[in-house]
């Protein structure tokens, strides 16, 4: 009986943790490459959710099938954001960088509210629905698909960064910008690429959870804080660290919420942030 509950809780934590990991990899990638924290990262996730919602509502395209379109769309959004705003504050004081992405966050929320209303929306009757049973415990199929999708995308990103020429160039820029430039790597192109990929990852995460999570303009605020905890725990700039940390944070959130009370689950995760900062500021797999 209690073992069943424990198993149920652990698997739920794992499932949501994999989504957190996917949101956080984009954030950590952008930070790793150019030392900028994207406060608007949660809004990329929000845009991904709306992309799924409108694909479903207007064109009857299922969120699962719409995923590649969402990814391409958000990749484009990331590039546009980089080219129009971020590129201009690269050499600006840190304050300007914070305000720039912070302003983007408010802008995207405002635009979503203006065009799509502040209402909570849901995608009814998606292709993937229902439950699957794992022995005595049951899980929502959408959650399982979302988690598998998150693992797939994070794995693909890792493969890209470590096994392809372009990815290696991106990694090289993250490790040492000056040296990479001397080796003939175009820094500007790498920065734009990091924003494109980062936004696409968050967008895919949004598309994956759109089938079982309410969609509203400020939905990103829930995820950006958790993604931040994941990035800190994983170590700034480490994709592998973010993946591992995402799972840990998901587990702590669900188990902590179960033991102490669900109303405190966000507070528990955020307290973890302060603990990491006190005990191990460089995180699990951080460099500095």
């Amino acid at each position, binding site marked *: 009986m209690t073992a069943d509950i424990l198993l149920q809780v652990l698997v739920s934590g794992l499932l949501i943790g994999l989504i957190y990991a996917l949101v956080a990899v984009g954030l950590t990638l952008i*930070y790793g490459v150019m030392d*900028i*924290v994207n406060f608007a990262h949660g809004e990329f996730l929000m845009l991904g959710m709306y992309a799924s919602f409108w694909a479903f509502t207007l064109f009857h395209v299922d969120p699962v099938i719409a995923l590649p379109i969402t990814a391409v769309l958000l990749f484009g959004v990331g590039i546009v954001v980089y080219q129009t*705003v971020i590129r*201009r*504050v690269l050499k*600006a*004081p*840190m*304050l*300007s*960088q*914070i*305000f*720039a992405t*912070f*302003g*983007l*966050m*408010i*802008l995207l*929320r*405002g*635009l*979503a*509210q*203006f065009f799509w*209303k*502040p209402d909570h929306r849901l995608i009814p009757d998606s292709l993937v629905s229902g439950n699957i049973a794992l022995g005595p415990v049951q899980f929502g199929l959408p959650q399982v698909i979302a988690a598998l999708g998150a693992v797939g995308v994070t794995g693909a990103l890792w493969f890209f960064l470590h096994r392809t020429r372009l990815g290696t160039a991106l990694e090289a820029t993250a490790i040492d910008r000056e040296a990479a430039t001397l080796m003939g790597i175009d820094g500007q192109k790498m920065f734009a690429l990091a924003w494109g990929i980062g936004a696409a990852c968050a967008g895919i995460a949004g598309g994956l959870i759109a089938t079982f999570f309410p969609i509203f*303009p400020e939905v990103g*605020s829930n995820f950006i*804080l958790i993604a*931040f*905890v994941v990035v*800190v725990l994983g170590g*700034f700039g480490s994709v592998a660290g973010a993946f591992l940390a995402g799972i840990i944070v998901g587990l702590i959130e669900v188990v902590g919420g179960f033991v102490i*009370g669900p*109303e*405190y689950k*966000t*507070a528990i995760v*955020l*307290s973890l*942030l*302060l603990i990491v*900062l*006190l005990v191990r*500021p460089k995180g699990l797999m951080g460099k500095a």
Partner: protein
Amino acid sequence: MSNRPVLEPRKALGALALLAFALVLPLSVSDPSRLNFFVLILMGAQMGVAWNIVGGYAGQVSLGHAVFYGIGAYTSTMLALSLGLSPWIGMLAGGLVAVVFALAMGWPCFRLKGHYFAMATIAVAEIVQILVTNSDFLEGAVGLSLPLDRSGWGAMVFLSKLPYYYIILGLLVVTILAAWAIERSHIGYYFRAIKDEPEAARALGVNLTRYKLIALSVSAFLTAVGGSFYAQKEMFIDPGSVFATSISIKIALVAILGGVGTLMGPVLGAVILITIEEYSRTLFGSTGSGTDMIIYALMIILVAVFSPAGVLGLLQDLRRHLPGSGKTSETR
């Protein structure tokens, strides 16, 4: 570097003129909602000037200042409700509680630089909001109401808006004077050194953490005082109205928009921000349309990209480029 910003007669005269204008302004207004609009501007300005001490002068961007605002509001209200203490004392008590909290949170958070400090402050504010929302002692999500039966200066409860106007004007003046005193003192120099050249400051023996904690404490105290005032003006507080992330954002926005690290920048920022807020509300209807967010987000991005010194910096640039103006350079 050695010349302290002295009080130029021209600036002193300007400040007095501004104060005189603020003192007579409400006498020409009979419409209570218009007067309330001025009170909101002064409240915004007071928060912004207080934020600016840590976010502007010392360059430690806090996006969680609502935590101090809420602490101020809850402390004075709880003291009034349980002990019948006057909010004038409650205000000071709230400020002191906020200072203690600032020291406790600054210790771990100041290990972080820049972007990550900002994120950590959001996290702290969020944790406190969750704890207050679930606290039976503080009436949780229900909130606290101040009784209407006691009114007058001792209880800081008035039926008219006018006394509130003069109280917040007084608080704003005190806050500006505090910021001004810091700007002129050696502490102000250390703050700017921490912001611009932290490594050099450290090499010269400046204890960075200590001065960051001083900046945060002073800022927290003044922000909490503003929170107590809010509670007295509204007579009702709940976690959503004083601890919300949106409050933190607004506090920072006021300063960013007007001019980070300048004395009067946040005042200008408050005039702009509150005006946009009020007019977009009346022009475009409900608050849910998002137009006010879009307008001030665009302003923030423009300021970040083109003029890190805010609207005030923009104005100063313009004045410098005008022919005939004697001034060529500012000390900063």
